[in-house]
């Protein structure tokens, strides 16, 4: 049985590992969730925040953030809405949902306790 198929016995168990070919595999989705914890923003705004912190995760591959954002949206971890910016142009902005916050907290606790990357 794969690790992904193992049922969770209780809520205190660590979240199941995503599928192997899933874009949620790895640290990028959690990174995006962390960025959204600082407030809602468009894809470009999130990447700007990341660069301000000196992290070049999406450097030269900035558009790769959108599949991850859409994936998180389909999972119900983030929600998208149209917001008008200071320049008058509307952008699709993302913000964290309650489910996303819980997920982020759980993954942080799990990582802090020496667990595996979620």
């Amino acid at each position, binding site marked *: 049985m794969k690790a992904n198929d193992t049922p969770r016995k209780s809520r205190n168990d660590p979240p199941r590992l995503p599928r192997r*070919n*899933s*874009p949620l595999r790895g640290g990028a989705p959690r990174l995006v969730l962390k960025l959204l914890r600082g407030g809602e923003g*468009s*894809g*470009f705004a999130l990447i*700007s925040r990341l660069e301000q912190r000196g992290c070049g995760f999406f450097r*030269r*591959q*900035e*558009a*790769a953030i*959108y*599949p*991850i954002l*859409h*994936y998180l949206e*389909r999972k119900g971890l983030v929600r998208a809405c149209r917001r008008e910016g200071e320049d008058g*142009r509307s*952008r*699709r902005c993302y913000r964290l949902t309650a489910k996303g916050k819980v997920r982020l907290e759980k993954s942080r606790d799990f990582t802090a306790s020496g667990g595996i990357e979620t």
Partner: protein
Amino acid sequence: MKLHYATNLRLRAWIRVALRPIRLPLTRMTLRREFSDHFEDCRDAMLDKGLSEREADEEALELLGSAREVGKLLKLVYRPKIYLIRAAILLLALLYLLPWPTRINRQFYGQIYWMDGTPPESVSFTLQGWKLDYLFKRDRLNLELIWDRPEDGEKLFPPPLMDPQEMMGYESSGLIFTYEPLFWGTYVGPAYPSEELFESTYMIPKSYLRLSPDGTSCMLSESFAHNWYILASNNPNTKDDALRTQYADPLQSFINAREAWINHLNDN
């Protein structure tokens, strides 16, 4: 913001490649707008840095990254949904078909198959197997798993597959799957007056006969003819050319059987 013609073309090409795996129109529209917005923001940021318009366009396109890689990620996100839709369509099609069969006929073969009682090489064969018939109004779906069982297998060459328990052989096994619309039926002649009498003679099973649309004639189902042909031509023990020819012509065999049946009625 008005883009340079060449930049616009390149951006459109980039978006087209990235969105190639996506089939959902609304999602395509959303993503196209997001990529365009991202490009514009990038370009504005580059212009603020002091780059020329041309350089800003180049840099913004460069920063977007590989369209193919983005497309692969999008495919992972949206592709499973398409499989689900396909599965749902298939399920609906099956649900549509299920109420249609008017009869499901399971038949076990246990009788002597050869019609004239003269099996080849003086070895009698018993046709055994399972048969599943779905009648869809007038069309028929036929699935059969059959095998021949010679009663004196030692006379045959090559020797048949032997059953160690009963020391009996199995020959000419096969799986037959046929779909038979009505218009494949072969016209034979007037309808039989009594189905009970017909079945009692066991010349041709009733399930192989079907009434013509006007109800006055009888048709020999094509699947029966095919089965007959397959059995006759694939049986390695049918060495007699006359027998082979006879069994390879299902319509002639059926006419012979019908004559035999009429003679049987006349005799009684």
